[in-house]
């Protein structure tokens, strides 16, 4: 029984510490976001969002104990059924779910609302680990790539059907994991270039963009005159890029919904309509910018208190930190997230099984995506996408889902010396 007791010795306490700092400051920030000046609202009041969040933190702690005491093998063993169950829930929610502000992604059970898409992230992280863990699994083989790509595409598609594009986009983050496991960098490059082409075309217009491409083509031809193979690659990629540029307009106006078009327009041209479509971006920048270096003081924010920011306890929670705790507070939060991300990479890298390592990188990718997109949108570096800030935003499903991801990684890490799957 020595082994079992030593779980606490093997636990990565640094991560636990960062986790606790994040959820507790998150709880206090939720309190600040809903606080009405002059009132005697208590952060412990279970009728308020802050009190509820504290309950969710408590429930997460129960999950923590549970995960630490159960057999570490269950995660690999049950990864398939967990995945099947959560994906089924995504299907069911389409039929039985409650519609909240345009998306049908919640189960209402009594007073509690559960968002299955949050748990699907956890399930997908597990099942990806299991697939990569198979003997001779090589992501470079198209068959394998298609397999894991399907595992991501399935929940992605279902969540899109729910109307929750933000949560669906999160699944794209898993491609980072593939990259770690050997997927050619071309995919990442193509992804980044596509993004640049898309934004560039919207910003500069079709003709300028084609001009730039033509320029690049001429330059490339001059450089690689004598290399036929290179010329071929160059021609194909420029042609593909041109096709992409031509399709931007179509994609923008036919694939994206009007509110998504608005968000992108606002991102590209933030001052065009500050009182209409640009309201949220303008106001969140005002709130954060007005915090100054030291902030206005805890519970003393005005922009968030007086409802200039929508969704301030959930997606826009960072505005409250920026306004009340200023640059100092924001800096501290970013340092915490960065330390957590670095720590997760270190943990993932020291795993001896592919299951644990892939799971670790999944955790990394999910947290990175949520954190960078969420903060990026509040400070105008990214179009508005409605996803929560991990550990911070109000919401039980997201908190528990992220907690499960982190705790499971810690559990696997604590048992890393025990052989679980194949060595890499």
């Amino acid at each position: 029984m020595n082994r079992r007791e030593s779980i606490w010795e093997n636990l990565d306490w640094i991560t636990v510490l960062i986790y606790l700092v994040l959820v507790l400051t998150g709880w206090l920030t939720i309190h600040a976001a809903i606080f009405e000046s002059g009132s005697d609202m208590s952060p412990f009041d279970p009728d308020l969002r802050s009190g509820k969040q504290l309950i969710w933190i408590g429930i997460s702690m129960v999950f923590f104990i549970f995960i630490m005491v159960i057999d570490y093998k269950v995660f690999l063993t049950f990864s398939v059924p967990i995945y099947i169950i959560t994906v089924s829930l995504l299907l069911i929610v389409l039929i039985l779910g409650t519609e909240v502000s345009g998306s049908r992604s919640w189960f209402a059970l009594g007073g509690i609302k559960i968002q299955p898409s949050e748990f699907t992230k956890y399930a997908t992280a597990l099942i990806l680990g299991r697939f990569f863990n198979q003997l001779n699994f090589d992501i470079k083989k198209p068959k394998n790539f298609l397999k894991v790509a399907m595992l991501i595409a399935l929940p992605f598609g279902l969540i899109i059907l729910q109307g929750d594009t933000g949560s669906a986009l999160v699944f794209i983050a898993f491609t980072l994991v593939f990259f770690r496991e050997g997927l050619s960098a071309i995919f990442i490059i193509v992804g980044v270039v596509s993004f640049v082409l898309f934004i560039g075309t919207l910003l500069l217009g079709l003709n300028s963009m084609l001009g730039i491409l033509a320029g690049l083509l001429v330059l490339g031809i001059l450089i690689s005159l004598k290399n036929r193979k290179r010329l071929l690659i160059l021609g194909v990629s420029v042609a593909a890029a041109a096709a992409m540029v031509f399709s931007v307009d179509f994609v923008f106006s036919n694939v994206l919904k009007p509110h998504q078009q608005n968000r992108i327009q606002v991102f590209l041209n933030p001052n065009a309509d500050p009182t209409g479509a640009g309201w949220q971006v303008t106001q969140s920048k005002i709130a954060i910018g007005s915090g100054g270096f030291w902030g206005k003081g805890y519970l003393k924010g005005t922009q968030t208190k007086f409802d200039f920011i929508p969704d301030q306890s959930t997606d826009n929670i960072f505005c409250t930190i920026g306004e009340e705790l200023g640059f100092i507070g924001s800096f501290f939060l970013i340092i915490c997230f960065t330390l957590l991300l670095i720590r997760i990479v270190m943990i993932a890298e020291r795993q001896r099984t592919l299951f644990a390592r892939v799971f670790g990188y999944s955790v990394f990718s999910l947290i990175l995506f949520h954190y960078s997109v969420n903060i990026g949108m509040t400070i105008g570096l990214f179009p508005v996408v409605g996803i929560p800030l991990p550990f911070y935003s109000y919401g039980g499903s997201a908190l528990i889902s992220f907690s499960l991801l982190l705790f499971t990684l810690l559990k696997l890490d604590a048992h890393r010396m025990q052989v679980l799957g194949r060595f890499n």
Partner: protein
Amino acid sequence: MNENRKYFFLGIAVLTALIFIVRLSVLQVFDSTYRSEAENNIIQRNIDFPFRGLIKDRKGRILAENMPSYTLQVIPRQMRKQQEESMMSWLDLSREEFNSKIEKARSFSYYKPSDFEKLLPQDEFSEIQDKLIDYDGVVVKPILRRAYPHQSLSGALGYVAEIDKEKLEKEKGKGYHQGDMVGISGLELEYEETLFGEKGVKYEMVNVKGESQGSFKAHEYDTTAIPGHDIAISIDLELQQYAEFLMDGRRGSVVAIEPASGEILTFVSAPFYDPNLLTGRDLGHNFSALTTDTTKPLFNRPLMAAYPPGSIFKLVQALVALQTGVITPVTRIRCNRNIIACHGAHTYEDLQGAIQYSCNPYFRQVLRRVLNQNESDNTYEDTRLGFEGWYDKITSFGFGNPLGIDLPNEKGGYIPPSSYYDKIYGRNRWKFSTIYSLAIGQGEILTVPIQMANLAAIIGNRGFYYPPHFIKSIDGDDAMVPAKYKEKITTAVEEKYFGVVVDAMAKVVEDGTGFRGAVPGLEVCGKTGTAENPHGEDHSVFIAFAPKDDPKIAISVYVENSGQGARAAAGIAGLVMEKYLLGEIQRKYLEEYILRGEFIY
């Protein structure tokens, strides 16, 4: 396998942090505009409008007061499409009007309230008050508007309205802002600074809906409004209303002055209107109706209507001649009607008789003696010398220049100076025979009614006057009355020469043309006149003061197109003096005669 790729992931984490920190330091540390934008968001500067000073009459009755009214404001961001139809119906607006108003509000701000429908009176507001609860984005701003409870004195009170751009520019630095209600004309304009008071400011924090979230920095920057000063004016409301009653439906003016002080007791510019027309939301509409009215109700006749003074000017000619020493009370002159027409049965009168019968040949001769005193051999030069002396004495009665009344737009009439004739005829090319019509108050001479009332006061005072004025006290303190209204102005004619003129005026009323100007039991001095009107019937004019000794009231009455001064003007003057001196009208038959209004027969 691929272990080096971990640096890619570490790199992303660090790079993201760096980008965020740089961006945040720009937003939060280096760019301070967000701080002021945040304050703009939450701080609402609410003007605390001062209570505008009241205007009272000489007995403390309120002539101008403040009434609650309500301005509806809209917050475009909160308005719902479904509300629009019903809002248009209860505000009685067309689609186009509604849209243009909304557009105006939007261009000001999406999330701050801006004026939508201004100055709804209490009764109209009560009708819609209950409905407002169901409307999002509609805010009520209570605002005081001016009201004139007696609907009287339109010629003097003026009106109050929102300050216009021009005035805002002109009065820069005096603390006026767009939206302030200021005096635009009349006493409201003249005493604007006294009545306005001082605005206060309350800074309030508001949320995104514009709802108050309490004071800003514990009222540290707030100031309280200081109410404007009340003013009392010399008008006697009862007398004013009686004079308006008599002048109803006519054109002309009634000005009554207290001779001992220059205080204006009655000031009627007819036709008159209810000054409440120029308050509240219909101001613009009513104002243009008054402007286009062919009877010109906005033309302030007592101050601006210049008429030839006619026979009444003989009084001044007599006084100037006496002072000049060219006649004495017993001077008799033959009524030679070959040179100039005359009327009535008389042939050879002394001064008193000449005034009483208004003898034209007599006063022609009087002016000749004033102008030609044989001081120069050259008859032209002689006339010029005499004319200069005459001009100085005439203008000492307040003719030719504004008297300095406390109302805007006072005109001075016209007394031609010698340079005027030089210009027309050339220097030393005009003489008495060129300008003799001045003798009987015709020719180039023009006077305004207030000057004629002042003339009555001067004769009643035997040679002096105080500039006519309205102001009686400010906040009950008469020491605040401007010094220029307490300054006694003496004419160039000595007191001793007035007796004969006063006696003659008494005769005019006692058994002459001015009999309708009499007041039972009192000695009234008056003079009738007829202002020639080339465009139609002559204007009926009468001036008077009473009692003869130590007069309490001096008056001038003009009734346009009503023929001889003996009828309409003398009758009205008599009734107004009777009302003032006796308190009630004993001569009902005279009142009926005036109200019947058949003066041309």
